[in-house]
């Protein structure tokens, strides 16, 4: 008996986690997938009823807004955070004496809750008392800045706050990448008289392709999961102008009592994540096994 216990200890230790993952991750996904194919409303029902919930999603102007917002927000957030992160990393890579302190300043927003970030920017962007009032106070009486309450512009405030929060992290990723490039190659290029910007654009940046991919995956993942930031900054409003699939799902699940819609919108989110993350994870795991 003790012998058996000894031999199987690794499996015994792993078993609870294995069961937990199978139930709470994969079992739950299966549950949500199934319920998304039923007519569940206030209570979950389990009789299969084709794709009615997905048809309702397709017909819902609110969900359409949420998907369009995800596309706008996701694209702008990823592109701006990457460009800004790369720029900051290159600037910081020039043998700056106070690099440690500056890095700390650029990266600290990443330690904050999205709710804190949203609360802070909501106040800064406040149309009556925030930036607008401040600039007016400087003598520009006609200055107007009310993106937060403008249905067409509010989504860009979410981009702004999200970039503020995450670009420092991208900088840290890129900085580590810049530092890992072979110094000898860079020195050789400098000895040959190649200007610094060419060294970056032709040698260093192309060799960082895997880091671009990593940064993209992390940012895309953050964008799809963005929920707290929208709740704190705009509450999804004005109206539902800044709704994302995540806030749509939450509203359906907990305030509208429409479990079928909640489940199907969650599955759509899942699908978006799948298409981005699965190829990445697959290649990661494969190269690791080699």
């Amino acid at each position, binding site marked *: 008996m003790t012998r058996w216990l000894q031999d199987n200890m690794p499996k015994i230790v*792993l078993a609870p986690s294995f069961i937990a993952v199978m139930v709470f991750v994969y079992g739950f996904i299966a549950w949500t997938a199934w319920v998304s194919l039923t007519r569940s409303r206030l209570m979950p029902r389990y009789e299969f009823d084709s794709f009615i919930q997905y048809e309702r999603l397709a017909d819902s102007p609110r969900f359409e807004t949420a998907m369009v917002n995800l596309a706008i927000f996701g694209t702008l957030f990823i592109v701006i955070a990457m460009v800004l992160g790369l720029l900051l990393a290159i600037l910081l890579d020039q043998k700056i004496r106070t690099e440690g302190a500056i890095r700390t300043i650029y990266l600290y927003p990443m330690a904050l809750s999205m709710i804190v970030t949203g609360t802070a920017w909501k106040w800064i962007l406040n149309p009556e008392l925030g930036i607008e009032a401040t600039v007016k106070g400087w003598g520009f009486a006609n200055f107007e800045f009310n993106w937060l309450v403008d249905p067409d512009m509010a989504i860009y405030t979410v981009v702004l706050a999200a970039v503020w929060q995450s670009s420092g992290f991208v900088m840290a990723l890129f900085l580590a990448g810049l530092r890992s490039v072979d110094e000898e190659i860079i020195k050789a290029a400098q000895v040959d008289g190649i200007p610094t910007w060419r060294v970056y654009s032709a040698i260093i940046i192309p060799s960082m392709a895997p880091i671009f991919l990593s940064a993209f995956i992390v940012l895309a993942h953050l964008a799809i999961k963005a929920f707290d930031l929208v709740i704190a900054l705009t509450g999804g409003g004005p109206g539902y102008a800044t709704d994302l699939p995540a806030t749509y799902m939450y509203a359906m699940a907990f305030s509208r009592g429409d479990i079928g819609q909640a*489940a199907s919108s969650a599955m759509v989110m899942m699908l978006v994540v799948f298409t981005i993350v699965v190829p990445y994870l697959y290649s990661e795991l494969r190269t690791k096994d080699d």
Partner: protein
Amino acid sequence: MTDMSYAPTRTQSPTTKLVLRFILYILLGVFALFYLMPLFVMITTSLKSLDEIRTGDLVSLPREVTFDAWRTAWSGACTGIQCEGMRPYFLNSLLIAIPAVLISTIIGALNGYVVAQWKFKGANIFFALLLFGCFIPFQVVLLPMAIVLGKLGISGTIPGLIFVHVIYGLGFTTLFFRNYYVSIPSELTKAAKVDGAGFFRIFWSIFLPLSLPIIVVSVIWQFTQIWNDFLFGVSFSQAGTQPVTVALNNIVNSTTGVKEYNVDMAAAIIAALPTLLVYVVAGKYFIRGLTAGSVKG
């Protein structure tokens, strides 16, 4: 490289160099201001009176420093009908975060140890399944989790939230320890086995003493995640068990009475302080945790 003279090193004049350095530092300074501005505005706003906020501007220093807003935020601000400030919720977050961080780190360490050093058929598949679980949008488990918590009789309770955070934290903690232990030569485990040491003995006397850095990374990562969590907090809590992020959001969006921006800002800083502190004290480990999941290796 064979002929050094054919492309001589370009030399910039000292003046050009100085100007370039100057521009570089200006740029770095401008970006530093961009990142610091919200924190600065939060702090100054929290120290102003409401009258000054209505008349003054965002970036000015407070004419008269007052800590009234901090007092209200800590023990008097209303989160809906209750007006007890952030204090009880701050405590809730501690009661949730501390056990959840410890439990998920311990289980993650054991899991990582097995996956890295006691490979058996299926261990890698387990790891892949677990890793994938890190990436799912949690919306997809929200509804069934609400039902299961109810069936277990822990819905809306602190133990319920601890349970949820442990389950969905396991992926990352296992990943941290697995990647750390994989670099320890497996000959060590084999030699110890030959000497008659068992599974836990090897973990306890060989692996654990080596693990301090990765324990710090895991604890900091989990603490930051759980403290800053909002989705689980808002979905699985009820009045009285809400974590600090949910309370902050309720204070800011509470519609009763006068809008007290200084209280909002003080409450936001209170909610941010623990993770900011961790970041300032152990930033190196914080960054290691952030990059561990995203960089090959």
